[in-house]
């Protein structure tokens, strides 16, 4: 046993490997992205026979990992909560079909939300799919529950969800980790099993057989619910039921305020499935309240107070401060201090980011009246300089390009429509709507901002990466070859740092769209400067501001929004912040009075 100061995601990775999982796929998404890299480190360290790498999207990741479990290899898939939406089809179906070797679905939620489109509750999705879910309250439990999830899956031949949240996955604690001792043999089997004909009726089930599978699933869920035992703490007349990170906050507050004789705290390691019969002891309490993130999963199963009667806020992270507020509403504490939290500075694209350069050029040619349908990635931050009008979910920029263009065409109105998507997001879910746009001859401009990495979530690999984490060669996939193969006739590749070429290509695309009823595609390709290779290869063009030429028009601040250009309010002139500037030199193109010059 050794002690490590691990994040929840590192703890999960170790739990999976210690639980015998040898096949792990996923798609990056904050706050889940560190699990696969931590698994890869273990594979390297112990020379394990295993597969752990990123997939093109969550649906594919789910199907690959789940397929491996059907071939008798303990498997897991990782994603963030909105990624689970993408994987919903196999997620729902795999519950019916069940597993062969253990299979864990790791979905990390983001109550708040801190960096997500929604603060949906993966436990709720698990309940909808009839898949049991474990919800760790501490980093130590993240390690322990990853192993428990595999055990539970193997025991009942059912996929099991391990739900984590930002506060667990990006929390840290000293965790006791078992010394590594595990066999390194993989024994796949599929058609070779003795009861193959019986197995076939679930692996390739017809609707009639699906009905039977549903019955079997219900039986499994009832058995798991019957064995699902609560853990009780303290001894009061008010019962608070909880799971996940929130349990820890309430436990701490009960101790801090000395409420041990007022509240009984009930911890549910497995918040779904619960059996009402098993929980009939709760009826003896004066009040029964569920405090959980972020949807009423325990509350609905046991019909308690909570979100539905307004005791627990219906949205937002249940922070320790919110738990304190709930205790005040219950009359258990008084004179709680409330504080005004000042807003924090909004994030921006990095200094030198090629996305900024590309979008600056696009605005030059298409102006403010064009519709900019954005997507999920760093370039969402183009909101700051008015080069993004919509952000829905992965791939929707391309569908919206279709939608807006068609809508204005139906109304006989001319409208420039620009869809903006990153390389990884294009592969993830931008290709199917582009096929539709080609097929239905819808004219709009699709910009694929290709920085050869999944930058927003910590620079994970993409399909342009030529080798895996072990250095083994991979076949790279060309965006422009895919686009051409779909029947797109206007496809150009430009380096966005090449300002003049960018402007010319954009003008050309504009002309093409006027004359043709079909989409045009420009790939703006430049390595992410947030990677070692990208920064090393970037041009070095140090710049300064000629004060006498700067008129204080703020175009460089408002239209370009590079964090390394700051405005001096007293002087009424722009300045270069040398600690942030990476000397990309692109801002020379931005200043209308030529005040930004080479040093």
């Amino acid at each position, binding site marked *: 046993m050794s*002690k490590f*100061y691990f*994040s929840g995601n590192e703890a999960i990775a170790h739990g999976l490997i210690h639980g015998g999982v040898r096949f792990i796929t996923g798609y990056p998404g*904050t*706050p889940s992205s560190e699990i696969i890299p931590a698994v890869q480190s273990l594979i390297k360290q112990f020379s394990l026979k295993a597969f752990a790498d990123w997939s093109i999207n969550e649906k594919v990741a789910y199907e690959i990992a789940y397929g491996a479990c059907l071939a008798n290899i303990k498997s897991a898939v990782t994603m963030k909560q909105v990624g689970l939406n993408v994987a919903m089809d196999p997620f729902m179906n795999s519950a019916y079909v069940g597993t062969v070797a253990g299979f864990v679905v790791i979905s990390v939620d983001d109550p708040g939300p*801190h*960096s997500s489109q929604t603060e949906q509750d993966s436990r709720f999705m698990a309940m909808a799919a009839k898949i049991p879910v474990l919800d760790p*309250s*501490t*980093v130590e439990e993240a390690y322990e529950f990853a192993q428990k999830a595999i055990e539970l899956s193997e025991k009942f031949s059912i996929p099991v969800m391990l739900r984590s949240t*930002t*506060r667990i996955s*990006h*929390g*840290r*604690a*000293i965790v006791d980790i078992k010394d590594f001792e595990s066999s390194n043999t993989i024994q796949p089997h599929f058609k070779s099993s003795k009861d193959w004909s019986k197995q076939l009726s679930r692996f390739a089930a017809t609707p009639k057989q699906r009905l039977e599978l549903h019955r079997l699933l219900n039986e499994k869920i009832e058995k798991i619910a019957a064995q699902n035992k609560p853990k009780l703490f303290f001894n009061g007349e008010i019962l608070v039921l909880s799971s996940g*990170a929130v*349990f*820890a*906050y309430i*436990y*701490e507050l009960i101790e801090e305020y000395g409420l041990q004789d007022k509240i009984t705290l009930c911890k549910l390691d497995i918040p779904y499935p619960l059996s009402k019969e098993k929980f009939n002891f709760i009826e003896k309490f004066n009040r029964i309240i569920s405090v959980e993130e972020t949807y009423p999963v325990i509350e609905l199963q046991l019909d308690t107070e909570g979100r539905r009667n307004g005791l627990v806020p219906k949205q937002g992270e249940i*922070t*320790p*401060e919110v738990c*304190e507020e709930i205790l005040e509403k219950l009359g258990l504490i008084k004179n709680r*201090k409330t*504080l*005004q*939290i*000042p807003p*924090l*500075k*909004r*994030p*921006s*694209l*990095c200094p030198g980011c090629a996305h900024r350069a590309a979008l600056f050029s696009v605005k030059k040619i298409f102006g403010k009246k064009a519709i900019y349908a954005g997507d999920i990635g*760093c370039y969402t*931050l183009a909101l700051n300089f008015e080069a993004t009008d919509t952000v829905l979910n992965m791939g929707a920029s391309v569908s919206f390009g279709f939608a807006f263009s068609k809508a204005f065409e139906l109304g006989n109105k001319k409208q420039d429509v620009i869809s903006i998507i990153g390389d990884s997001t294009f592969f993830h879910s931008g290709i199917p709507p582009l096929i539709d746009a080609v097929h239905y001859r819808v004219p709009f401009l699709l910009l694929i901002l290709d920085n050869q990495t999944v930058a927003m979530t910590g620079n994970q690999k993409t399909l342009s990466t030529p080798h895996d984490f072990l250095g083994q060669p991979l076949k790279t996939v060309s965006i422009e070859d895919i686009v051409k193969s779909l029947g797109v006739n206007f496809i150009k590749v430009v380096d966005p740092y090449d300002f003049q070429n960018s402007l010319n290509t954009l003008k050309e695309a504009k002309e093409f769209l006027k004359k043709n009823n079909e989409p045009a595609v420009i790939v703006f390709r430049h390595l992410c400067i*947030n990677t070692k290779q990208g920064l090393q290869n970037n041009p070095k063009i140090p710049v300064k501001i000629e004060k006498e030429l700067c008129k204080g028009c703020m175009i460089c601040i408002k239209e370009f929004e590079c*964090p390394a250009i700051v405005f001096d309010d007293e002087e009424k002139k722009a300045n270069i912040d040398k*600690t*942030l500037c990476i000397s990309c030199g692109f801002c020379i193109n931005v200043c209308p009075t030529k005040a930004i010059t080479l040093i």
Partner: protein
Amino acid sequence: MKLVILGKGGQGVIFFSRIIAQAASKKAVSVRSTEIKGMAKKGGTVEIQMKIGEGLSGLVRRGTADMVILLSEDLIDYAKTFGSNIFMFTKEEIEKALSSVPMRYVNTFLLGIFVKKTKIFDCDDVSKILDEENKKSFLMGCNYVQFSPGNSSERGN
């Protein structure tokens, strides 16, 4: 002990906090923390909350921090929501750090100043955790406090 460490992406705040956590783990049974860093690379705020030797979670309730370590002065109003005991670095200290060590070791220079001034941790204990380059920078920070006149007492409250 409840600590909050605040700064901006690129300042090495997370590294700074992890060294504190490692030093704390030598003194306390439990060290727990939570990191908000999603937009850190984009100039966003990096917020680390930490509990040493207490609690089940790493979260520090507003108004209850024993100390807030502030690496970015413009976050002062936000820092105050966690507690009144705020440790800040002076302009001279930051300039000294910037002029003494390469950019990537500025955070360990400042860590040296913090450790020497607050005396929560022992300089020798912390230096054992660091690799050679960080150790050099850290000790320079410690020495800067020790040998600067009028700079030997805790301040910043």
